[in-house]
């Protein structure tokens, strides 16, 4: 009867020898049968405290026991011990507890090795079902992650300011060149921006960039393009330019408005803007690199003359900058 109700039990005689064992208990020892051996030779009692004597074992009746098989792979078991019907007899019922997943593999157990009331099979079912569901979710996550990276790589927008990013600017610039449009390329960068970032924190810096972006968008016309191409660097593509004075007006207004202090959490952030512009009509054959490089020369001149101003590119400027051998770092904007 005990073998059906508790297939993982052992019965001990008064001197601690195993006199009989349930069919599942018998599978636990591959080296020699458990029946006939002292219980404490087969199992080590780890808790409630280390029990090494029969008296100690007897005192642990009705308690939750943590046991470990002395034989490899040293599986841990749970158990409970009670006095048997005969004088001095003890009965221990065992269970694998949480290690049941490994145990069924180790001992090649089947559903028949567990009592019909035992939840072990349900637990194994759940472990497998959950692993399968989890794996499906993991695959979905991996695919979504890949799609996200791809989408970011293809993005044309700067997420912080909502302006075009470097890639977005490049594609519009090459379209303008290909269509032979008459346009101005203005390169503007912020002065003292690093100081704001360093002393007031990145949140203040990000706020300044957003405010500057909104100023630029308000000052340009609807068919113009504003892009943030680096940390504090912007490129403006201004179309249909007949009169350079208009460009100068736009640049000056932007620079004036940027110069006004920007309030962030009650503190004043002070930056200014320097700009340089080149006009596409000054080139017989314009290339993006040439235009960007020349706007850079003009920007450098603005910085050189004291910042917070706007300069048009001219051949004279180029000659001067080449003569001075001023290293002109062609703005290597980090990819955003």
């Amino acid at each position: 009867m005990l073998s059906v109700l508790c297939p993982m039990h052992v019965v001990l005689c008064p001197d601690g020898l195993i006199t009989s064992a349930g069919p599942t208990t018998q599978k636990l020892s591959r080296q020699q049968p458990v029946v006939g051996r002292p219980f404490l030779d087969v199992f080590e009692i780890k808790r409630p405290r280390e029990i090494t004597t029969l008296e100690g074992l007897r005192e642990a009746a009705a308690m939750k026991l943590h046991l470990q098989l002395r034989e490899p792979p040293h599986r841990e078991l749970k158990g409970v011990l009670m006095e048997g019907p005969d004088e001095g007899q003890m009965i221990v019922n065992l269970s694998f507890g949480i290690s049941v997943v490994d145990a069924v593999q180790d001992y090649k157990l089947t559903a028949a090795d567990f009592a019909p009331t035992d939840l072990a099979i349900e637990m194994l079912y759940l472990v497998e079902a959950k692993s399968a569901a989890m794996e499906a979710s993991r695959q979905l996550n991996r695919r979504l992650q890949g799609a996200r990276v791809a989408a970011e790589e293809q993005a044309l927008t700067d997420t912080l300011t909502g302006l075009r990013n470097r890639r977005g600017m490049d594609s519009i610039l090459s379209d303008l060149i290909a269509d032979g449009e008459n346009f101005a390329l203005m390169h503007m960068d912020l002065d003292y921006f690093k100081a704001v970032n360093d002393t007031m924190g990145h949140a203040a810096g990000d706020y300044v960039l957003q405010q500057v972006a909104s100023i630029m968008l308000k000052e340009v016309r609807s068919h113009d393009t504003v892009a943030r191409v680096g940390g504090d660097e912007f490129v403006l593509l201004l179309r249909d330019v007949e009169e350079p004075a208009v460009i100068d007006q736009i640049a000056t207004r932007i620079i004036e408005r940027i110069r006004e202090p920007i309030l962030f959490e009650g503190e004043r952030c002070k930056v200014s803007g320097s700009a340089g512009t080149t006009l596409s009509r000054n080139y017989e054959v314009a290339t993006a690199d040439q235009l960007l490089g020349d706007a850079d020369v003009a920007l450098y001149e603005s910085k050189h003359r004291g910042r917070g101003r706007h300069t048009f590119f001219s051949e004279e400027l180029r000659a001067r900058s080449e003569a001075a051998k001023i290293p002109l770092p062609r703005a290597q904007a980090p990819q955003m």
Partner: protein
Amino acid sequence: MHGLINRAIQRFVVDSYGAPQWAAVARRADLGFVEFEAMWTYDDAITPRVLAAVSDILDRPYDELMEDIGTYLVSHPNLEALRRLLRFGGVTFVEFLHSLDDLPDRARLAVADLTLPRLELREHGPHQYSLTCVGDIPGCGHLFTGVLRAMADDYGALVFLEHRGEADGVETVSIALLEADYAEGRGFELGAQAS
């Protein structure tokens, strides 16, 4: 409808007939995409549309198709995990039959928002049973006929199955167990986890 169900249909077509056929199904059903995600939820109207498209493209009668899908779910090596989960239902085919009532609850334990057809097993005689299926998709009785046929094979049992038609949305499958230990069956080790 849960993505697992839509994806099962997709895998059936891909594994049995090839990816181009599935692409044709996706076009015919006007999905706008080719791959179902197993862990997403789709509009309920999509599944009947996909099944109709499969039936069209493969030129198979709908009921037969449903039964084939059922058989595929249990017997194809790519879905070994599912076969194993079903085998947890019982040590013998009869125990498995009796576990079918719990199947929707078992599925929900694993994937909380997965709803399977409601199943009920009735015992009419020592070896005579019937299974009633109530589901959102017409033909789920045919699908379970396929599942039962494949599971009987898995357990090594010899059964005679017959779809008895549909009444008020309830489909009935009669099951006659001719021999419980007819063949060897496929093994099932508790510890051998399907990948």
